[in-house]
């Protein structure tokens, strides 16, 4: 059976080149990057080379990149790291209603500990209310954490504009750039970023490796104590193969891949909107090159997902009827989507390996699946 993977926002296939680049670091080049002998130095060189590649990609210095276990850890380290470091100066943090759980649940945890968190509103087309941001900043505000690209609906925030607001008000700015990294250009200086989170497995790199950008001069409270690795900001023997794979993945992502995805995305959206009872979530402009989030009337997302899976197509829903009540995702709620439309929402996320043939096969299968499910649905 034909297999089409359209869940690249969840995770991606590792590029062959990435696997190849990593392989020696599992076997021959197995050294601990903290050791002085040649084995250690070989690993150290690989780590520092990778650090430079990632720093260059965002116009940062290598010393500003801390390797972590992924996006979740980076978000935890950024937000807790600043909150605990600056709690003497203020206890207020600003974020938005549609962040990833790795930001929202950190915020909730900090709330329990006495921090005050403001959750900014998001517009119907998926953009954070920046007027509200300006009004929310107070003398107590120590951090603004707003995501770059949303993982469910793919909208990309104007981080340079947010950065200007934060600079004027003299507050630190963190962005969760896990979905946007290497897909949307990021210049940490232009965006006045203090911190930014990245993860390798969303861009054909390995799982369990990520990075946090921390601007020179900013101190964060360490979250993992132990050795003095990563400029004494994150203990633990470096995941050398992961780090090498991460950098390789970043190097591999080219402008032409992004253009290819953009073209396919637009075609996919255009064809989908020809179906009856469909609507696109999130703006058509300022949207990730690989995200298509569509609500289908009169079908349940889970049923669409499982029926497509039967045709070899992998997609994602965001709502699930797990509790006594079918809970729409917090993202769709934040943009004000009606619950009944949230329930029929499917996210398709492309990769550079997705072909037009894959998209056409998906469109045809969808036509069949939606018709079938609507056929057994009351009215």
């Amino acid at each position: 059976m034909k297999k089409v993977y359209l869940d690249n926002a969840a995770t991606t296939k590792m590029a062959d080149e990435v696997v190849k680049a990593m392989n020696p670091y599992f076997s021959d080049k197995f050294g601990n990057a903290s050791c002085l002998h040649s084995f250690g130095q070989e690993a150290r060189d690989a780590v520092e080379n990778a650090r430079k590649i990632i720093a260059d990609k965002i116009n940062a210095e290598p010393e500003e990149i801390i390797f972590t276990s992924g996006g979740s850890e980076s978000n935890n380290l950024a937000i807790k790291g600043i909150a605990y470091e600056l709690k003497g100066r203020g206890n207020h943090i600003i974020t938005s209603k549609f962040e990833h759980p790795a930001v929202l649940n950190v915020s909730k945890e900090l709330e329990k500990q006495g921090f005050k968190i403001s959750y900014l509103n998001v517009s119907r087309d998926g953009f954070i209310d920046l007027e509200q941001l300006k009004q929310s900043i107070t003398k107590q505000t120590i951090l603004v954490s707003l995501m770059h690209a949303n993982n469910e609906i793919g909208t990309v925030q104007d981080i340079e504009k947010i950065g200007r607001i934060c600079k004027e008000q003299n507050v630190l700015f963190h962005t969760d750039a896990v979905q946007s990294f290497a897909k949307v250009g990021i210049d940490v200086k232009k965006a006045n970023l203090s911190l930014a989170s990245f993860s390798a497995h969303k861009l054909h790199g390995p799982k369990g490796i990520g990075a946090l950008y921390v601007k020179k001069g900013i101190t964060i409270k360490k979250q993992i104590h132990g050795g003095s690795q990563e400029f004494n900001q994150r203990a633990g023997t470096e995941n050398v193969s992961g780090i090498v794979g991460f950098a390789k993945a970043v190097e591999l992502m080219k402008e032409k891949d992004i253009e290819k995805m953009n073209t396919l995305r637009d075609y996919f959206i255009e064809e989908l909107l020809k179906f009856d009872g469909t609507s696109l979530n999130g703006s058509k402009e300022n949207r990730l090159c690989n995200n298509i989030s569509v609500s289908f009337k009169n079908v349940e997302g889970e049923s669409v997902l499982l029926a497509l899976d039967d045709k070899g197509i992998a997609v994602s829903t965001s709502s699930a009827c797990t509790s006594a009540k079918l809970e729409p995702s917090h993202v769709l709620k934040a943009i004000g989507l009606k619950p009944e439309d949230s329930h029929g929402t499917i996210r398709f996320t492309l990769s550079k390996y997705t072909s037009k043939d894959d998209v056409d096969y998906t469109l045809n299968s969808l036509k069949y699946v939606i018709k079938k499910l609507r056929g057994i649905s009351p009215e």
Partner: protein
Amino acid sequence: MSFKYSDKLMRHFHNPKNAGKIDNADGIGIVGNRSCGDVMHLYITVKNNIIVDIKFKTLGCAAAISASDLLCELAKGKTIDKAMKITKQDLVELLGGLPAPKLHCSLLAIDALHKAIEDYTIKNQLK
């Protein structure tokens, strides 16, 4: 949340044999609410106190659709009294088990049957 549905459940989901609507049904049961979950319409035809035909229309998850289909299979050919005795446990067992968060979806099918029978009983008394 992660779990796996049984193969049996998936067979009912992919190939429901009892999906559809009965025009001039003797009883109709409507349960659920779209804004907070699955919606089910159940239609029955009753002759001599026996459910001779039963069909469903369900807007919902795989658990809801497969439970609807299985319930129709179980109730068809049964007397009203026997059909009333079909329990949630019967359904869940025959579906090869359901993860706890999905139990309410199968419950809905039982509710729909009870409503359809109630509807039939009321209409029948009026005759």
